[in-house]
């Protein structure tokens, strides 16, 4: 059995997406405002010559409004905040090219409690102790009304699988997804004419591990790919039993056995937490 603790930034990205997921049992809060488009890591150039790149941009035609969200699990960088403050509606319109919309916008930080700074005068949604607490005010009044009072999340189940992992997450979390992806890949017989190592250069394979893969920058992809490759080589490929099972799966009508599943758990149980540092996977 694998015990899992997602990195706070991974959690916050999931919470931010979940805000308009439409599931009453999740942390969704913005369903009535119809934020339907969620743009990922899009760079906006401001007329003052700065670049800003929010984690998620939500667009509501109903409210003629854009909500730009930055997830902050570490300290909030005040320089970054001042860059966001240079952004105008014209900057937003020319960058997002939202057909027939001239939207207003709010910039918002989604954070965990220990990162909040009192010096920041932008709206901050703080997730802590099973609640959402808002600091400062949104310009859009329906948004302000939703978060006016603390929101109780104790009866809700957070959505944690929209953004399954980041480069900061624990080895076990990433390797679980790699094993799942490998099984799927082998079952679909995609490996018949492919060497194992080349799988990790295949964007389609990497997209099955992470739904956001294609939106990542080249640097981000390189970091993550290197981490995934190392984990697979160190903990799976070196295990001859697993390789034999995977080859059998690829060869035809072979069923996944409980022995194979146990072997996967054995690997995950024995893998040290984050043995590979950021420096390791960059080299």
């Amino acid at each position, binding site marked *: 059995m694998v015990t899992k603790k997602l990195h706070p930034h991974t959690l916050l990205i999931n919470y931010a997406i979940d805000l308009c997921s439409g*599931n*009453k049992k999740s942390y969704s809060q913005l369903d009535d405002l119809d934020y339907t488009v969620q743009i990922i890591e899009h760079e906006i150039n401001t007329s003052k010559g700065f670049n800003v790149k929010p984690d998620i941009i939500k667009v509501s035609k109903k409210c003629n409004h854009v909500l730009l969200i930055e997830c902050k699990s570490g300290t909030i960088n005040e320089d970054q905040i001042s860059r966001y403050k240079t952004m105008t509606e014209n900057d937003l319109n020319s960058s997002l090219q939202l057909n027939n919309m001239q939207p207003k916008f709010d910039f918002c930080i989604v954070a965990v409690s220990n990162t909040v700074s009192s010096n920041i005068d932008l709206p901050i949604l703080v997730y802590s102790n099973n609640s959402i607490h808002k600091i400062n005010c949104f310009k859009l009044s329906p948004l302000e009304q939703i978060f006016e009072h603390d929101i109780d999340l104790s009866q809700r189940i957070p959505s944690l699988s929209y953004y399954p992992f980041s480069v900061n997450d624990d080895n076990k979390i990433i390797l679980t997804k790699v094993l799942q992806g490998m099984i799927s890949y082998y*079952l679909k017989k995609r490996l018949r004419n492919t060497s194992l190592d080349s799988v990790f250069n295949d964007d389609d394979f990497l997209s099955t591990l992470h739904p956001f893969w294609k939106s990542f920058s080249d640097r981000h992809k390189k970091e993550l790919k290197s981490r995934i490759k190392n984990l697979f080589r160190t903990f799976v490929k070196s295990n001859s039993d697993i390789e034999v099972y995977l080859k059998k799966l690829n060869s035809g009508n072979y069923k996944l056995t409980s022995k194979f599943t146990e072997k996967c758990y054995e690997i995950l149980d024995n893998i040290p937490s984050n043995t590979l540092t950021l420096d390791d996977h960059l080299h």
Partner: protein
Amino acid sequence: MNSNRLPRVDSMAKFNEALQDLIPLESKNLEGNYLRTDKRHRRTQLKTYIIESNSKLNLSEFLIYDSIQCEIQSTNIDKIKILKIIKDQIPYEIYLDLTNDRFWKLHSNILAEELDKILNYFINYSELELDHLWYPSIMLYELSQASGNINNGLKVDYADYFLKDTLNYDLGELKFKVSGRSSLKAIDTLKQEKDFESSLAYSRMVIKRGNTRRKYIQDDITFHGGFIVKNGSSIEDHLALVDLAETTYATKINEIEQARIGLSYAEKMHSFEGRSFDIEFKRNIEDMDLFVSRLLSSRFRLWGLKSVIHDNLYQISAVDLHTGDPFDLELSNNLLRVYLPKGSCGNVVLRLIVNLQHNFDSNTKCEFLGI
């Protein structure tokens, strides 16, 4: 009786006539006349099964030599084929209607016992990427209420697959058949009883369609896409019922697949699309580990690795063994959340809901899908 050769039809009218000939002569039976049976006096009614296909195989190469030998033969209608099967040295022929690439229809009057074995063989043959249809109870109910249809009975089939004691499955079983127009009212009354509230999952709906006196059909529609003629002789009404059920199912699958999760790219921007499905239970899961171990089994056609977030929240990295597609699940004590990535098959969501209705809690529902 099982080995009768099917006509090689050359027009849809001839095809419908051939299917008409597979319907037993029930009206004569009511008057004490001839009834078509096999040597053991079992009725050989016309049965239509719809199966879901993700197969990319070239059907002309669709030839299996194993415990079943199968060959596909063309007719003079492009989309109508004949499956020639030899099983236990007995030859069978089944019409295969490929009008819809995704939902194949099989028509036959082979005994249900034999036909089910043949179907299960194909469905478990992973290269073919086939699956049953999975009608949740509410969809069967709605079919019975559709215009032109009359509900004339139903069957409840529930067996608790999530009990700790695997030797005592029968303790959690409830199976019965109700006949007649008041069947649904009778079930509504039973739903008030606390002892039965979690175990009233419909496995069959008896639906009558057509002119009730002269030209009509009465089919048993099963929760996995079987349409078994039980009474009447109108092939038109049988096929209309099958088409209606197919359209309803295809619409639901489309709804699911529209919500699959992934990225789109336009105007130099990546946008995130899709949402998860919350499948809710009235019954609480008592033992999360046991539940997960039963969920990741051949019954659900799932494989997966579980991770514990905390006592009451598990995450499962799963693979749908029907297609090999990966997908993710989150489980709390009365909720199962499904994240289906773009490109994967939506049938897994209905397979989960239906199997949970029949094996855990018949009140299992997904509000977003109206199920």
